[in-house]
């Protein structure tokens, strides 16, 4: 009897204990797969659209106008922007100096940023494309957006994996294959895309503008020129009648530039529902915070090269708009001071942005360099800016058609080209060209498209990528036309079925 009691007590203890083996994990503060990403529901007060595509479109907000990704590598590698080493500041292992000198490495975090930002966009497109509830037009938009991200990858890195299903590993494609994929995707979805005006969404004209861009660069991308196709795509946009040049250049980039007539497709930056534009911090000197009453201290990083600044003639409204130069004042009109001014700086403590930069490194003056002001700052600006950033705008389409016409006719003074370029010169209040050289066209395009991540692609297409410019030696290495695939990603791919191969010349 005793034993029976004891045994039953023990048994019940063990049984009671083993009943408690529930190991289900229920997330309480986070969403998991139960949360429908295509139907975010509330939170629309910021003026966004509620088409369910935000998860994918929002990815263009990351990297387009902040530091350490797409914007940085497409600007600092060119002759229109530089990050000088300012004494102990901005050396950063020499990565931005190397980028300026075209001696970048595959470990550059900006390249990794650009890579990851593009694939993050592609991943969100792929996820949404798994949904069944989208109509043909929305599916077409997602495929266009995905093609846009692939264009960035193709343009920067060339040989990448074309992933079209979430989580599915594929073999690395060649640059020409990526080109073919982008083209076929865009052509396939064109009939389904909207032909009306859209805001921050891809429509037929956005797709055509992207086609125009890849055709214009087709020789670089594939070895085969496609100038007529570029003209046709540009004409499709021009003839749509949906877009026009803005009468004011400044308006195209201002904090209130939403829905500007020139915008074909924008990254809709907004200080609260579209964060990711930090140009004010990236370019302004610390005390310039007082000029604009910024809510975050600037970092004193980016400026433009003196030569590039001087490529604008006085009176060019674009010169006035695109740069911040001269003595700086606070909102009460008092000069702003840098108490840690360089002894060598003739201006002393009062901040004065001079187009001339004393040196790239190691002791670039803290106040030297015209600052990047194309996307103008508003007072009391939050850390993130409000200006929409055009991914495609009408002026670029005009320039594409002009260039393609000139190239097709082997004549840089081609009347169509001259006419289109002069439309932009007229708006900029500078005299019209009667004749034009290749160099003049490239410079004109540079002046117009400054700070819009266009310069690198243009310099490569014009064969000017290897030219010497300030603090950058000439080179003729065609391998530099592609960036190296980020080292981290090559390493990470070793765990996958298909391993990434580094671009030629970077092993």
């Amino acid at each position, binding site marked *: 009897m005793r034993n029976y009691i004891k045994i039953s*007590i023990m048994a019940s203890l063990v049984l009671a204990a083993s009943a408690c083996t529930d190991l*289900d994990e229920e997330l309480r503060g986070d969403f998991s797969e139960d949360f429908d990403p295509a139907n975010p529901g509330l*939170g629309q007060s910021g003026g966004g659209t509620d088409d369910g595509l935000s998860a994918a479109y929002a990815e263009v907000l990351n990297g387009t106008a902040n530091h350490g990704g797409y914007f940085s590598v497409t600007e600092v590698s060119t002759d229109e922007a530089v990050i000088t080493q300012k004494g102990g*500041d*901005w050396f950063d292992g020499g990565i931005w100096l*190397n980028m300026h000198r075209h001696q*970048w490495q595959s470990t550059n975090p900006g390249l990794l940023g650009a890579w990851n930002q593009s694939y993050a966009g592609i991943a969100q497109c792929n996820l949404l494309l798994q949904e069944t509830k989208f109509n043909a037009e929305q599916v077409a938009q997602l495929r266009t957006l995905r093609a846009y991200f692939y264009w960035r990858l193709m343009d920067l890195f060339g040989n990448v994996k074309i992933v079209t299903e979430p989580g599915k590993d594929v073999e690395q494609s060649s640059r020409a294959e990526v080109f073919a994929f982008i083209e076929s995707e865009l052509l396939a979805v064109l009939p389904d895309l909207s032909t009306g005006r859209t805001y921050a969404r891809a429509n037929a004209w956005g797709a055509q503008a992207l086609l125009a861009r890849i055709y214009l660069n087709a020789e670089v991308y594939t070895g085969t020129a496609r100038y007529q196709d570029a003209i046709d795509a540009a004409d499709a946009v021009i003839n749509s009648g949906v877009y026009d040049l803005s009468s004011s250049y400044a308006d195209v980039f201002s904090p209130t530039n939403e829905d500007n007539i020139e915008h074909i497709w924008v990254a809709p930056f907004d200080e*609260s529902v579209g964060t990711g534009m930090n140009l004010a911090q990236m370019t302004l000197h610390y005390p310039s915070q007082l000029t604009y009453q910024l809510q975050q201290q600037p970092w*004193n990083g980016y400026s433009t090269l003196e030569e590039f600044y001087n490529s604008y003639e006085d009176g060019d409204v674009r010169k006035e708009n695109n740069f911040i130069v001269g003595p700086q004042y606070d909102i009460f009109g008092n000069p702003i001071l840098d108490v840690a001014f*360089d002894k060598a700086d003739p201006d002393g403590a009062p901040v004065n942005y001079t187009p001339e930069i004393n040196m790239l490194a190691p002791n670039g003056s803290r106040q030297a360099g015209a600052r990047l002001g194309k996307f103008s700052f508003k007072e009391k600006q939050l850390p993130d800016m409000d200006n929409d950033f055009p991914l495609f705008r009408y002026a670029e389409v005009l320039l594409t058609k002009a260039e393609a016409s000139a190239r097709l006719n082997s004549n840089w003074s081609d009347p169509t080209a001259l006419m289109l370029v002069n439309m932009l010169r007229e708006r900029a209040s500078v005299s019209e060209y009667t004749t034009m050289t290749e160099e003049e066209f490239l410079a004109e395009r540079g002046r117009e498209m400054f700070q819009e991540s266009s310069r690198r692609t243009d310099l490569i297409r014009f064969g000017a990528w290897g030219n010497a410019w300030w603090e950058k030696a000439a080179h003729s290495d065609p391998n530099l036309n592609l960036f190296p695939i980020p080292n981290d990603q090559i390493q990470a791919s070793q765990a996958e079925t298909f391993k990434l191969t580094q671009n030629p010349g970077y092993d």
Partner: protein
Amino acid sequence: MKKYLLLGLSLILSASLWAQERTVSGTVTDADTGEPVPGANVVVKGTTTGTITDFDGNYQLSVGENTTLVFTFVGYAPLEVAVGSRAVVDASLALDISELSEVVVVGYGSQQKKEITSSVVSLDEESFNKGNINDPSQLLQGKVPGLSVYNKGGDPNETSTIRLRGISTVGANTEPLVVIDGVIGASLNNVDPNDIETINVLKDGSAAAIYGSRGSSGVILVTTKSGKRGGGVSASYNTFVSAATVANEQPIMTPSEYIEAGGNDLGSRTDWQDEVTRTGWSNVHNLSVSGGSDKTTFRVSANYRNINGILEKSGFDQINTRASLNHYALNDRLKIGVNMSLTNRESNYSFNEALRYAVLFNPTAPIRNDQGNFFQAILFDNFNPVAILEQNINDGKRKEMNFNANLEYSLTDQLTVNANYGQQYGDDIRGEYYPRTSLFRGFNRGGLARRSVEDSRFTLFETYATYATGFSNVDLSVSAGYSFQEEEREDFYIELGDFPSDALGYYALETSGDRVTGKQLIDVASSATPESRIIAFFGRLNMTIDNGIFLNASIRREGSTKLGKDNQWGIFPAVGAGVDLTRYLDLGTFNVFKFRAGYGVTGSLPNESGLAQDLVEYDFQEGGRARLTRAANPDLKWEEKAEINVGIDFAAAGGKLSGTIDVYNRDISDFILERTVDAAIYETDRRFENAGKLNTKGIEVALNYQVANGSKFSWTPGIVASSYKTVLEEFIIDEQMRANLGAPGQNSTSMVRVAVGEEIGQIWGPVFTGDVEDGSQVLKDVNGDGNLNTAQGNALEDDGDFEQIGKGIPDLEIGWTNQITYGNWDLNAFFRGAFGHSLVNTFRAFYEPIDPGAINSYNRIKSDKQIPEITNAQFSSLYVEKADFFRLDNITLGYNFDMSSSSSFKSVRAYFSVQNAFTITDYSGIDPDPVLQDRGTVDNGGRLEGQPDVLSPGIDRRYNYFTARTFTLGLNVGF
């Protein structure tokens, strides 16, 4: 859990059913002195039946036929006496020179020290570190071979970093599992150092395997003081007052040196390091009452701590109370125990940033300008350190409570069941306020307030049964049990700006202008972890053969909610064997020579929950979006550590010399790490994975030698030493650079290399030749290819001129204790040292070059290693310093007053103690102690985020607190 308590009750009720045959009684005395020994254990051999002697050494016990009684007491050799037909059995116990009979808590029970076959170190109050110690882990610093306890500088509000045998895990929980009075996962914050009786450290896998998935980083078992049975009631009062002074400042330029070097003279002369530091006075009071009758023991204590650090404002006020009650019933067959503890701490976290900026701020800047306002300027990573401290608020309150109830019942002479239920709660509320006049965090936002609350709960239920038996010369004990652990945490956080007045600080969030205009500036978050559970079944077998051969084996099957569905359950086995060779061989001078070997498997869990599930985040980008931000890893499984430990315990020369040597080999497989994955395939480029393998080999030695042991004079020096080496055996990435130096100007400058097949802790960089050209270091052509390639991005390239320029992990760590008594005086001197490691002196790397572009922003470091010709900051071997050190960590002189027997005081002891008395080192920074993990870089008033990186040791960052030298005067009174 209620049903378990009911079960427990039914156990009690059924207990009276079993009676005993006859009664023996007797007295236990000390063999030398003849004095009675109170509190000695008397156990019927081969059973768990037993009792404890009363205050006069008397006992009474019911026994069966042909039984043998085993008498044991701490410090005495066990004695076995056959009862025969006697009714009175007296025992006189001889002192045990080897102390191997000591009973050691090993998790779900205790064992005699001699039976232990794994690496376990036991420390009692006498051997704890002394002085102003507020964090229990500091009691152990340097005392346990293989246990590293480092608190860089000694911020009173920071807990120490604890590592056992080096890196036991990469991405999982790196801190040892703490068990307080049998409660797994208890918080060391909730036990006052004054209340701790012993601390046992289970070092190897075979000891820790019984704790399964939480045992990989080692186990620290804390036993708090309790009342003694039949010991009467006694009280004690302990107090000390201490003064912490700045031991070491950063060597910086004086104002005149600064001006001469090209700095802008702003007209004043300010010693900023002096301005932000102080002598921190602290006082601590501990009052306890404990006692016990035959049936019941109790102890209650109250602790008050008022601690002030050397950084102005930093410190805390803490009240802690602890109560324990044990009751023995049903002829001692049933033991009921209840423990409770409460802690309330009010902290002023102050701002460690003030120390950084005190080093950097222009020494010619005034504290205040002529108008009486703080001198402030908009510069990068540069704030008036006095203004930071005086303008802003950073404080918080933390409450912790825990209780546990324990039942132990002997069902039969052989079978004992034990059940333990406990809960622990923590509550933390913090507040920060930065007025609009503060350039540090407040100015940008028109005043900034931040509040955060965290609430946590931990529940434990465990039950196990132990069956003890014996036949011929074999003693056997078998245990089996069940463990249920559940943990959850909730938090809430808000940050708002634009306040109309600074007067109300963070108490009037509703007045924030951000409510009208704030947009993204309103920063709000709340979260809750899943109820994360660990469920386990475990068993253990202990066998002693011939009182000379010892076998232990255990197994634990355990599941966790944190892992992938098919990988939630793991099995953690352990075996160990030991033999006392002196029993079988004549080993001459050796009194004890025990050889033991153990093998055990333990696990590690990630800190985070939800890693096996997709994570979808919602934000307002584009007007609102939900997106997958972390791909699930449904295959996530335990990180597993398999460890072999071989050791020798010996005593020689009549017990004068004793020691322990352990060597171990541990393989950590499937270590959990958030790593970069192929961004083309996964939705993000980071994912938690079981990423690789580590191997650590090490040796640990502890030696004690009794130089003198007279009644007038005794001196027992002891030395502990340890060394280990950790190699990365497998990793998805062959080699990788980690640990960014940071801003200003040295981002993308990684300082640590991790490579497959090589040791962890390689500081990696270009090598300074000693020559300077145009203000720049001439770096070495390491590979001799005639082409100097020192661009950071090429650190791992074949043509890159980089090499190992330091080692983050020390080769050898030692502790040397000396306990000397002379009459009523006692002297305790404890030296500690670490050798073979280097530190990156980041202050020098940033601020030592006399950089014309930066000198106007920041003062210069002027160490004895400065090369004044260098004007460009460039990370190199120049800033990696050997940090070997030898330190008189603690010296304590005490005096025990003679008490007449008529005095109402039983004992009175006064002592004076100095912590960090002196350090011998060539390191030019603040503190040469190794840095075992890296918390990354932070600047310009930003905040540290993310998990510390254990793969990047050796970086002395700019946010470390200054070290203190502390003088303590204390008094212990017994009533």
